[in-house]
């Protein structure tokens, strides 16, 4: 191709064409847009929030979802996110300590619940205690706070050592849910908010069996002067937003 270009157009035109091709930016970012990094459990709720928010104004919000731990690492490596909706309080703490997030713009936005989901039998406390579950899907506890909560539940019900089920780990809760929904694993400990999205029977694990999954949001340093990011962060604390969040199976978080 380059030889063809050189022969037909001469060297300068060929180089100019190549330069044009290279520097043409893929995204002509709109001024009023912001990128929100969200823990996978909250992604569908966030879509609902954004739908409501975008109707009210001309801001454009983009979603990037993943596990809290992975997104945290990406922010450290310079990922261009304006807001981070984590599934814990630890990562927002660390971002503030590292100077990557604004300490004055940090709020709890939801408290999550964990459920036992089963595709083959009625999930219950007795089922969990019985130790008959052979394979259990959870999110990776190192990366996903709901995975860490699931580990606490297993310890609480004495499902360690020989009685422990084989754990099948998703990188984040969305991948874990996909394993269950496709029938590849029969049982799983997943967030209540996600279980309701694809149906099936669940048993809600009592709050006493694991530390509450308190989810904090932070405005990142990059989004400090972004009007769209500031507007969305303010909207997150509104009554309308709270109603959408609790309707999706979260408990209301108070600062």
């Amino acid at each position, binding site marked *: *191709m380059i030889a063809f270009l050189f022969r037909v157009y001469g060297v300068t035109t060929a180089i100019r064409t190549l330069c044009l091709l*290279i520097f043409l930016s*893929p*995204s002509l970012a709109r001024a009023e847009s912001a990128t929100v990094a969200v823990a*996978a459990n909250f*992604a569908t709720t966030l879509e609902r929030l954004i739908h409501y928010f975008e109707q009210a104004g001309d801001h454009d919000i983009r979603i*990037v979802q993943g596990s809290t731990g992975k997104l945290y690492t990406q922010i450290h*490596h310079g990922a261009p996110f304006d807001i981070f909706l984590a599934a814990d309080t630890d990562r927002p703490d660390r971002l503030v300590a590292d100077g990557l997030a604004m300490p004055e713009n940090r709020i709890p936005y939801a408290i999550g619940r964990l459920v036992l989901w089963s595709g083959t039998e009625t999930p219950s406390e007795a089922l969990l205690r019985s130790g008959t579950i052979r394979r259990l899907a959870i999110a990776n506890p190192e990366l996903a706070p709901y995975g860490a909560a699931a580990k606490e539940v297993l310890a609480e019900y004495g499902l360690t050592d020989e009685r422990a089920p084989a754990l099948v780990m998703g990188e984040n809760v969305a991948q874990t849910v996909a394993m269950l929904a496709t029938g590849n694993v029969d049982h799983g400990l997943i967030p209540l908010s996600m279980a309701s999205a694809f149906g099936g029977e669940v048993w809600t694990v009592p709050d006493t069996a694991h530390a509450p999954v308190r989810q904090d949001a932070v405005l990142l340093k990059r989004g400090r002067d972004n009007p769209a990011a500031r507007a969305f962060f303010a909207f997150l604390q509104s009554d309308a937003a709270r109603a959408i969040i609790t309707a999706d199976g979260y408990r209301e978080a108070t600062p």
Partner: protein
Amino acid sequence: MIDLGPLWLTLHLAAVTTALLLIVGTPLAWWLATTRSRARPFIEAITALPLVLPPTVLGFYLLILLSPNSTLGGAWVSMTGETLTFSFTGLVVASIIYSLPFMVQPLQAAFERVGPMPMEAAASLRASRLDAFLTVAVPLSARGFLTACVLTFAHTIGEFGVVLMIGGNIPGETRVISIAIYEQVETLRYDEAHILSAGMLVFSFLVLALVYTFNRPRMIA
């Protein structure tokens, strides 16, 4: 409605990568095809490394190399105000390394087939080395150029692991087709995943069929 953003982004990334690799890869392939240097096997090995290395190894080193905390990444941030990681530019850098053998190897083979004779003939007619290269070696290697460009383009479109590690999943910036499919499967949007996956399957088949059609050695009549 299916989001076509990842499609355009992927095509753009593949086009930019192919264009830049043509500039970088042509002199390198020519050097490898003509040199008698003892360094040649080592340079050839380095060129072929992306073929055998797991994408995670490339991704890991690139993440460190391009990070704003590194010398290169930091210099880029102070020049442009943007980070190299999790950006389109970063993906271009990664793709150039990742697809390098797909450009260099077909070109090198084509240049080797040209051999020294036509170049010597051109030199005896007082053509400069660049002139001889552009007017003799390049036209004689036309099929090699076509193969190299098509394979580089297609291979960049099929990139996944490296993009996942250094690109994240940012709409309009780094969410290429393979990443979009991964996310659609994870979030149970199988309809959209089917459309994009089937499209990739058909596209890849057509590309390979094209390469094999053009590379069929012609029988002498």
